[in-house]
C-alpha cells in the first residue's frame, strides 16, 4: 500500500518532485515575505520610539499608524 503511494506506477519520482518543488517554493515565498513585513514593522516601531512628544502625538492622529503599532506590539 505504502509502496504503491511512493512508487505511483513508476512515476513517483516525477510526481513527488513536482509537488515538493511547489511546496518548497510556497514555503520560501511565505517566509521571505513574512521576514520583510516584520523588518518594516520593527523599523516603524523604532522610528516611532525616537519621535518627540509633539511628533508622536501628530503621528498618532492617523489610524493607520496606530494599527501598525498595535500589530508591532504583538510581534
Amino acid at each position: 500500500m505504502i509502496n504503491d503511494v511512493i512508487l505511483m506506477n513508476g512515476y513517483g519520482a516525477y510526481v513527488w518532485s513536482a509537488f515538493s518543488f511547489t511546496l518548497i517554493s510556497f514555503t520560501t515565498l511565505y517566509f521571505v515575505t513574512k521576514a520583510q513585513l516584520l523588518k518594516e514593522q520593527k523599523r516603524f516601531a523604532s522610528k516611532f520610539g525616537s519621535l518627540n512628544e509633539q511628533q508622536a502625538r501628530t503621528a498618532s492622529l492617523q489610524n493607520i499608524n496606530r494599527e501598525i503599532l498595535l500589530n508591532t506590539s504583538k510581534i
Partner: protein
Amino acid sequence: MFKYFEPNKIFAITSKAPKYVLFLFVVVLVIGLSEALFLSPEDYKQSDAVRIMYVHVPAAWISLGIFSSLAFLSVGSFVFKNKNFALISKSLAPSGFVFNIVALITGSIWGKPTWGTWWAWDARITSMLILALFYGMYLLAWRIYEDKEQVIKITSMIAILGAINVPIIKYSVDWWNTLHQMPSINVLSNTSVHISMLIPLGIMTAAFALFSLLIFLMKYNTELIKVKNKGLDRL
C-alpha cells in the same frame, strides 16, 4: 469610488486578514493534496503522472490571472493617476512570478514521462518563459529605479506590453502545432476532463488562489508600512 479603497481605510482589514487566510489556505491545501495525491483516479493513458496536473495547471492559471491584473491595474494607474493601483500591482507580482516558475518547472517534470523530454521550444512553453521574463523585468524595475513617478511609469509599460503575451499563451495551442495538449477545460463549452479529476483540480486552484491572496496581503501591508516609515521621516 476609490476613496473607499484608500490604504488608510483598508489597513485595519488587510492587517488582520492574513492569519484567517493562512488558516483557510492550510485547510483547503490539505484537502486538495489528499484528493490530488491519493483519492483521485489515475489516467488511462498517463497513469499516475497525471497527478502533476493538479499543481501545474492551477499555477499556470493563477500566474496568467495575476499578470492580467497587473496590466489592468497599470492602465488604471495611468487613467486615474491613483498610486494605490501601483502599490497593489507591486504586491501581486511576487506570487505571480513564483506561480509562473512553478508552472514551468512542474511542466518540465511532467514533460519527461509524457513527451520524453524535459524541455521543448514549442509555442506554449516558450510563451510561458517569455511571461516569466516580463515578471522578472517588472520586479527588477521596482528594485532598480528609485524615483517613484519613473518606476510607476516603467513598471506599467512592462505590464501593458507583457499583457500582449497573455492571449498568445492562451491560444498558442490553437494557432501552432505544439507538443502541449489542446485545452481540456472550457468554461463556455463541454470539458473533456472527468468530474473525478475536476474536483481535485478545483480544490487545488482554490488553495493556490488563497496562497496568492495571503502573499498579496502580507506584501501590501509591508508596502504600506514602508510608505508610513517615510511619512515619519518627514515629521
